[in-house]
């Protein structure tokens, strides 16, 4: 929970509207029943629990929401939306908030998820499929986490789980065009 008291300047402002437009989720429908936070696998470590995040969105707390660690720690397990009596799709909300957080330069400093996502998607763009060894190597180089899990690669090699050569699907130029058009919103 955020320690500082939040001053309520109005309910249902621009943030709730933008989240709804981007994700289709309806944060204003939340009744604060807490079913989401009761079932959320990362609620116990979160700076904002799911029901608190939704309330912050209702209260137009853009800074707090976009800078929260929770939007990056959400595992997209879909438990919240499955159990929500009001069908507030928090998992989809978090996807929209991640995009908004990056665009606003507010990404929580502790998370490396955006780096992982970028490396992952650039491999998919170039190869068509994930090259796991390349993914892990690039991620480690980009984040400087070279020694973390140093025991895992030899184990995976010995178990035949880490092919040295990556896959490659034809149509790279077409895929690059796809990625470019998606980034432009599919209007071109």
């Amino acid at each position, binding site marked *: 929970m955020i320690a500082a008291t939040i001053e309520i300047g109005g309910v249902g402002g621009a943030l709730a509207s933008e989240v709804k437009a*981007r*994700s289709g989720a309806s944060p204003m429908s939340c009744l604060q029943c807490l079913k989401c936070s009761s079932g959320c*696998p*990362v609620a116990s*470590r979160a700076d904002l629990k799911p029901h608190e995040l939704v309330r912050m969105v209702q209260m137009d707390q853009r800074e707090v929401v976009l800078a929260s660690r929770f939007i990056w*720690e959400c*595992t*997209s*397990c*879909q*438990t919240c*939306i*499955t159990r929500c009596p009001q069908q507030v799709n928090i998992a989809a909300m*978090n*996807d*929209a908030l*991640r*995009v908004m957080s990056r665009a606003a330069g507010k990404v929580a400093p502790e*998370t*490396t*998820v*955006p780096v*992982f*996502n*970028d490396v*992952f*998607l650039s491999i*998919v763009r170039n190869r*068509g*499929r*994930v090259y*796991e*060894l390349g993914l*892990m190597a690039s*991620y480690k180089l980009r984040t400087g986490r070279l020694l*973390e*899990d140093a025991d*895992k690669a030899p*184990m*995976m090699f010995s*178990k*035949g*789980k*880490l*092919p040295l050569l990556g*896959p490659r*699907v*034809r*149509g790279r130029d*077409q*895929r690059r*065009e*796809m990625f470019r*058009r*998606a*980034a432009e*919103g*599919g*209007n*071109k």
Partner: protein
Amino acid sequence: MSYLFFPGCSLDGTAKDFHRSTLAVAAKLGLELPELKDWICCGSTAAHGTDPLLADALPAKSLSAAGGNTVAVACSACYSRLKTANHHIAGDAALRARVAQVVGVDYDGGTPVLHLLEILCRDIGRARIAQTITRPLAGLRVACYYGCLLARPPEITNFDDAENPTLMDQLMETAGATAIGWPHKTECCGASFSITEASIVLELTNEILSMAKAAGADCIATACPLCQLNLDMRQRDVERRFGRRYNLPVFYFTQLLGLAMGCSSSELSLASLVVEPQGLLESKGIGR
């Protein structure tokens, strides 16, 4: 019976044992799984957490090439992404048009997508599978672990009961094993946080392993490459972190089913498992 197979990226790498055991089981059943030509990555969490339109476009690219045939999926994360894209595109004409602009093909979201568990339990059926069981897994107590994405959210996957799925339990019972009752069938393992924030995975997998052990399981059966990797490859890390000893082999359900069908260890890539299963299998008279 034939389906176009979408293996997904993991099945050609970290989950090649899932791939091999799937094909071994399919061969025993006369189930044909020709690969969907030039399939591409479903986009996984990286796509839906970065660009929601791309997250629908990547599956649309692969599914639009299926020519109306039903697509079979083994990885539950791919399954979730393909079905979610179908749900989005079929239910939203404006989105369908935007996806068509991105992909270059107008895809209607109508290619049927089924998980192997659905195909085995519903299309082939337990009676037919029972005919192929030559080495029943008698006395083996299996905790069937479905993870997040097969059963949730139910309006998209339409897979089974969202809180207490039983398709894998039914298969394990058909294979002669005992599918134990336990409450963590659909708890989250932490998925790709294995790379970005391993402490999440260690905490969550500890809960799952601990509950499986408390419920009296000899082993765990999974249907997802990330679940399997997190529970198996990180089990020693979990034991060290929390001072516990689990020693629970974590199979793909296809490996256990294949064992019951008389497939060899090498056909099922049992040597790829990190927590050694041979001792357990021999103690139940199943190993060789």
